[in-house]
């Protein structure tokens, strides 16, 4: 039972947090409101509170969005990105999951050293090794291919670490019981380990999706063909076009931003559970 004082403190805290979140949401609200307006209206509303209010619902309400979706290849870029994310989620869960499982449950020489090396790799920023990745992919002749884009993105030291931390606490007797049930090690991984670790699988999947969705540098190096571009690169291509209006630019940005916000809001519980169960947080 909360005391009167605790109730009052909670109310104050809620008000402060609401104000803070509104402050951080201002640019998003502004973007959303103006993405429905023609450029003239955006300029006219610029210096008033109307800048945060969408226009009245009429026939032209979605015109910026319709123009972007019909006159540009943005839908294609979105689909590309979703496809890359799906491929990387599946491959990432399998490859990083297997590596994490080996580090958690299988005894092999220098296991602890391997784990240490993988943990050290977590602090190496992607930007520092991207040239090596690029040269490697170029040498293999995989530039401008999906494989070339996906290959260096599959292995992720942080995800391996996340998986390892969760798998290490899985009970060994379940594996032993499965062995007696004629379950092969690979089958055990897919039918037991992954389903028993749903929260970390969800966490890794969300992180992978966000990585792919937000990544700009790597796809801009690998892809030159407009058929293969991702949403972020597409966004840049569309917004740098002189014919694109401010309203249309904001509409594209809104469409790129919304999935990230939705994913975070839908999976925030799993992300927190997954990260908490590993005793770590993304650095």
């Amino acid at each position, binding site marked *: 039972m909360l005391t009167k004082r605790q109730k009052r403190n909670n109310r104050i805290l809620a008000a402060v947090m609401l104000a803070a979140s509104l402050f951080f949401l201002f640019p998003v609200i502004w973007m959303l409101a103006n993405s429905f307006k023609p450029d003239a209206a955006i300029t006219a509303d610029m210096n008033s509170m109307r800048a945060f209010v969408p226009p009245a619902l009429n026939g032209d309400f979605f015109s910026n969005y319709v123009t972007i979706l019909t006159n540009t290849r943005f839908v294609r870029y979105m689909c590309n990105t979703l496809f890359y994310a799906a491929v990387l989620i599946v491959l990432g869960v399998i490859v990083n999951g297997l590596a994490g499982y080996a580090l958690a449950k299988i005894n092999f020489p220098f296991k602890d050293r391997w784990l240490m090396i993988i943990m050290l790799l977590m602090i190496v920023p992607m930007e520092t090794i991207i040239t090596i990745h690029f040269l490697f992919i170029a040498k293999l002749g995989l530039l401008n291919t999906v494989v070339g884009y996906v290959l260096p993105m599959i292995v992720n030291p942080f995800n391996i670490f996340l998986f390892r931390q969760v798998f290490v606490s899985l009970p060994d007797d379940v594996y032993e019981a499965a062995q007696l049930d004629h379950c092969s090690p690979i089958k055990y991984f897919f039918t037991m380990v992954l389903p*028993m670790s749903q929260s970390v699988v969800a966490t890794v999947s969300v992180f992978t999706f966000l990585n792919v969705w937000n990544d700009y540098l790597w796809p801009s190096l690998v892809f030159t063909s407009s058929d293969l571009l991702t949403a972020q690169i597409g966004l840049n291509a569309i917004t740098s076009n002189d014919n694109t209006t401010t309203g249309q630019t904001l509409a594209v940005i809104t469409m790129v931003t919304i999935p990230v916000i939705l994913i975070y809001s839908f999976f925030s519980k799993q992300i927190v559970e997954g990260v908490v169960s590993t005793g770590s947080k993304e650095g």
Partner: protein
Amino acid sequence: MSFIELKNINKKYKGNEKNSVTDFNLNIEEKEFIAFVGPSGCGKSTTLRMIAGFEDITSGDLVIGGQRMNETAPAERGISMVFQNYALYPHMTVEKNISYGLKNMKVPAEEIKKKVDWAVDILGLTEYRYCKPKNLSGGQRQRVALGRAIVKNQKLFLMDEPLSNLDAKLRVSMRNEISQLHRKLGSTTIYVTHDQVEAMTMADRIVIMKDGVIQQVGKPMELYEHPDNKFVAGFIGSPQMNFYDVRVDGNCIIFTDGSRQKLSDSVIDKLKGYDSVIMGIRGEDLKFDEQNLGLFADSLHKAAINNTEIMGNENNLYFEFGGITSVARVSKYEVSQIGDQVDFVFMPHKMHFFDKNTEKTIVSAQ
């Protein structure tokens, strides 16, 4: 040839100086219920896990059904196992937990259904068939684990402390269920427990272990009445046997507090050559009733009760005697109060004598 033969089995973990299991020799017949019992770290679970194939055998031979199994994979040994922590698959329903092994063994779906129906029926799990383990109680989970083991029709059941996570009442009922199931299925069972009551009540034969070495193998009452050494005598039976350091003097033994106990000629004969020995006697062989006090009046002892445990069906009386806190188990009608001065006698033919150095039995109860 026995169904299972363990010949000179040794287990030594890398980096350990001592063996975890040393020279383990045991033959187990078909349909036998064998209990491995002993204190924590005595090697009973390690031995079971070597039989299951989860631990390598450092040296020795494991033969099941006439075949050497040392290097055989666990799934190929023809065994089922029930684990201490149930080891259920948490994301699968009761039905799927039970049928998982059968599916992997490519048993036809019709037969799987029949077997699962039979198992859930026999174990009283029909209404929980589609529940997941997290929605079941400890006893129900253990029944699912049993179900998973019995549907596979294996000839050998291994059980690793299956009841240790259950509360006392449930343990008693599950004990009964497992015994009945064993009789019904007729499969050979090896049951590991640290609870001597479980071993005594369920097993055909008990293997008592200490520090990786078998101390004695025998039927429950053999171990209770004729322990091979002080460890077995102390481990089996509750309350624990009373052990007194005594001096042999003529046809008597003298306790550290000076009390004397007359012995029969046959016992004295066997104690020849010993100056001092350990005398052991179980709580129920200390008598307080008029009839026994009259019968053995030449060795009457006195004690002041300093604690009592009322168990309902019987009472435990505690008192200082012979330099130790002794315990006597008396009927519920023999009520004593703390502070009572009482006379008692030791039943002479129920005394055990152990060598002080080797702790081996010199004379066992008759």
